[in-house]
């Protein structure tokens, strides 16, 4: 069989442009915002209620409160207890999901379109009238405390829960884990949750995102019906001062006796979501450690076989979240893996990226956007992010152009500003007896022994 035509990859056909759905934003008289997009071909609608009630707004002595508030939304309202609430949604085939980040709290459902109105009435009741009954709060608090215990034994969670403490100054909210500590969660009362709800769950802090098999007029009418008669004062925005733990390099060891892998987290404070270097940074990170074919993954996985995979990323928040390289490597190659991460970081700063790498990364980011917006829930989540970060609703109409405008100079400048290996905190969760001498030998600042979150300090 003659197969000369197989020698080369076939060229693409003419592209069909991805049209981002039209997004409508309106507001009710009381300040509740309604964001709507018609999307997809299945008869479902995703409803995300986004509330400006992230963990950055919780009292410093009550770490984990926002997360407990999110789970305790399932505990019922003034009109229906937790068991009834679950039945009222699940009998319709609908599950309620609640989730919290540092910046917002979201309550989400994706009902069949025919059940949307009934389900949305329940969802609105949850958001507006959450009751936080004492007995259910006590149960859910105990579950969160048990979760903290379990996270101490799970290496990924263990690493993620100590990262904040290793890179932020102790008074910064981001220094503590979202789940809280044994002491802070143990101190949370049902009254604390009710006060948090009263202060932060207000019409002006609330946005209803509706995406799917529904038109704009119907979305507006449902928003009015479910949230129109809600009143409340505006809550003040949480203040956030962010300082690093140290300006210099540091190494942190969490000893897991006998661990066969070391979980690594390497990085420092990043930048806020609305930083002007956002686009150069996501292009840079795609090349560095954000895609399968990134430099880090090719080096640590495909060349060296140190790991099943490695990723880097900026965690974007309203304030500067962390920039981290994350991976799990064989215990015996821990030091070599760290050295390769440092080497790749220095190389990117010194040499920048090639034109080919730049073009590939830009094409990747533009191309995968429609793949990441296939479902009503994905699209609603993306619109919810725009709300949380105060970005315009036509943001994605300009996304491609802004990616395409990133130059090699932009990437190099971004790398030099926002990736500083001499300030990296190197966090190793692994077998101390095997790795301690090696990571001390890196001479990357002082080695700190770190206890797991949840262990008395």
């Amino acid at each position, binding site marked *: *069989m003659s*197969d000369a035509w*197989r*020698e080369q*990859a*076939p060229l*693409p*056909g*003419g*592209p*069909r442009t991805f049209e981002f759905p039209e997004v409508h934003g309106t507001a009710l008289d009381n300040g509740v915002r309604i964001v709507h997009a018609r999307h*997809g*071909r*299945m*008869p*479902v609608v995703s409803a995300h209620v986004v509330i400006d009630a992230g963990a950055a707004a919780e009292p410093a002595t009550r770490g984990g409160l926002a997360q407990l508030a999110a789970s305790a939304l399932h505990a019922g309202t003034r009109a229906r207890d*937790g*068991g009834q609430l*679950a*039945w009222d949604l*699940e*009998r319709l*085939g*609908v599950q309620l999901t609640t989730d919290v980040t540092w910046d917002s709290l979201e309550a989400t459902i*994706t*009902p069949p379109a025919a059940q949307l109105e009934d389900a949305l009435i329940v969802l609105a009741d949850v958001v507006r009238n959450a009751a936080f009954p004492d007995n259910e709060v006590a149960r859910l608090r*105990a*579950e969160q*405390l*048990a*979760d903290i215990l*379990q996270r*101490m*034994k799970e*290496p990924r969670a263990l690493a993620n829960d100590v990262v904040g403490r290793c890179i932020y100054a102790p008074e910064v909210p981001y220094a503590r884990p979202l789940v809280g500590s044994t002491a802070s969660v143990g101190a949370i009362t049902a009254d604390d949750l009710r006060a948090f709800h009263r202060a932060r769950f207000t019409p002006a802090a609330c946005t209803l995102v509706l995406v799917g098999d529904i038109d704009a007029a119907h979305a507006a009418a449902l928003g009015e019906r479910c949230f129109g008669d809600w009143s409340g004062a505006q809550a003040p925005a949480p203040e956030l001062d962010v300082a690093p733990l140290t300006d210099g390099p540091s190494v942190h060891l969490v000893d897991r006796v006998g*661990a*066969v*892998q070391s979980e690594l987290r390497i990085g420092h404070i990043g930048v806020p979501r609305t930083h002007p270097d956002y686009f150069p940074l996501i292009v840079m990170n795609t090349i560095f450690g954000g*895609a399968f*074919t990134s430099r880090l993954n*090719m080096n640590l996985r*495909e*060349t060296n*076989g*140190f*790991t*099943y995979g490695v990723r880097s990323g900026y965690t974007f928040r309203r304030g500067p979240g962390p920039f981290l390289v994350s991976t*799990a490597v*064989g215990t015996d190659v821990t030091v070599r893996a760290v050295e390769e991460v440092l080497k790749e970081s220095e190389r990117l700063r010194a040499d920048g990226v090639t034109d080919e790498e730049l*073009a*590939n990364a830009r*094409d*990747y*980011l533009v*191309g*995968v956007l*429609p*793949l990441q*917006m296939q*479902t009503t829930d994905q699209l609603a989540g993306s619109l919810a992010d725009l709300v949380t970060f105060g970005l315009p609703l036509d943001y994605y109409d300009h996304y491609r152009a802004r990616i395409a405008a990133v130059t090699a100079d932009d990437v190099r400048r971004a790398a030099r500003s926002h990736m500083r290996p001499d300030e990296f905190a190197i966090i190793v969760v692994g077998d101390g007896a095997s790795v301690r001498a090696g990571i001390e030998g890196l001479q990357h600042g002082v080695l700190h022994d770190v206890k797991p979150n949840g262990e008395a300090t």
Partner: protein
Amino acid sequence: MIRIPIERYQLENGMDVVLSREDAAPVVAVNLWYGVGSRNERLGRTGFAHLFEHMMFQGSKHVPEMGHFSLIEKAGGSLNGSTWLDRTNYYETLPSNYLELGLWLESDRLGWLLPAMTQEKLDNQRDVVKNERRWRVDNQPYGDWDERIQMLMYPPDHPYHHSVIGSMEDLDAASLEDVEQFFRTYYAPNNAVLTLCGDFEPAHARELIAKYFGGLPRGPDIPPIPGRTELEPTLGGEVRELVHQDVSLPRVYATYRIPPFGTEDYYTALVTSYILGYGKAALLYRTLVREQQVAQDIVTYAFPIVVGASMLVIWATARPGRTAQQVEQALTEQVAQLRDADDADVQRAVNLLATERLNELQRVDERADQLSMYTQLFDEPERINTEVDRIRAVTPERVRAFAARYLGTDNRAVLTYVPTEVGA
């Protein structure tokens, strides 16, 4: 009502093709299921089907090393593969104008994998897979539960007795000769389903598929699954294992033998698993978590596997201060209550499952994977549209009869993890 369009045909070399057009977005999913998984592995080579899957991403005669990943990522696509008990799948989702790239890549590794294989690549991917095992299993609390459950639930000569990830010793033993033999045995058009779902012209797609796959030769007949594939419908006794591990809280995995995926009573099992453990109004969440507060969480899962028998697993983690015995006793009592399951419980589960199906089929990659699955396992891609009917046909009477027959203590394995004694 789900109406996914389906065009199905077969190439002369035996390859099944399913086309499903959905042009809502300019993307296309390319999905292949090969009828080979860990069930086909021979003694001493556990984990090999999965290691082999990794080798399929290492280039082929006309595709350079890392070509799969780099060509697809720079096209703006995503890709991966996965290995399970019954099958291995490979898939990419691409901007629709790159359909031909996906077909070129997939056909090249099916036609010309071996010329690109080297010892160096095998050794590298062996290290990667051993790190995958450490990451998933050895360095994870409860990480070996499915490996242990399979050993408890299936006799040593059954192909599900061993795990997909395999043992470190067997991974060490894998050779380039194994790669060649496995490829020649299982990677043939007559053991594959190719599904396209998304934005394409069917006539053009047929031409491209003929161009890239039509010339590949049919392989020898696929050898039967090794070992004993027939099983008694129930275990006929309770099997138990107690594991001391570095975990914070005790956890109980109660696993029941159930009929294989695709049978009528598999769907009864699926609905039953939702009655028991899916959602906060589920029977076990209501009772063990909310009311008795003996458990911290509940997970239930019916395995969609087809050889001999499947499994319904229920796991529950003890609340601090509660023992594994208390959890197991409460779990057993509540599972016995299913013999009185009522219509509300069944309707709730059925409605949740139906909504879940609607939601997941929004994605072209999920549609393509399910079409490949129903074709590979049952020779019936149309099941993607009738699956919800099979679920809706489950009645309280069927759940009660199913519970009486399959959910007794004499048809289960109980795997219990307890924290290692301090200082022990």
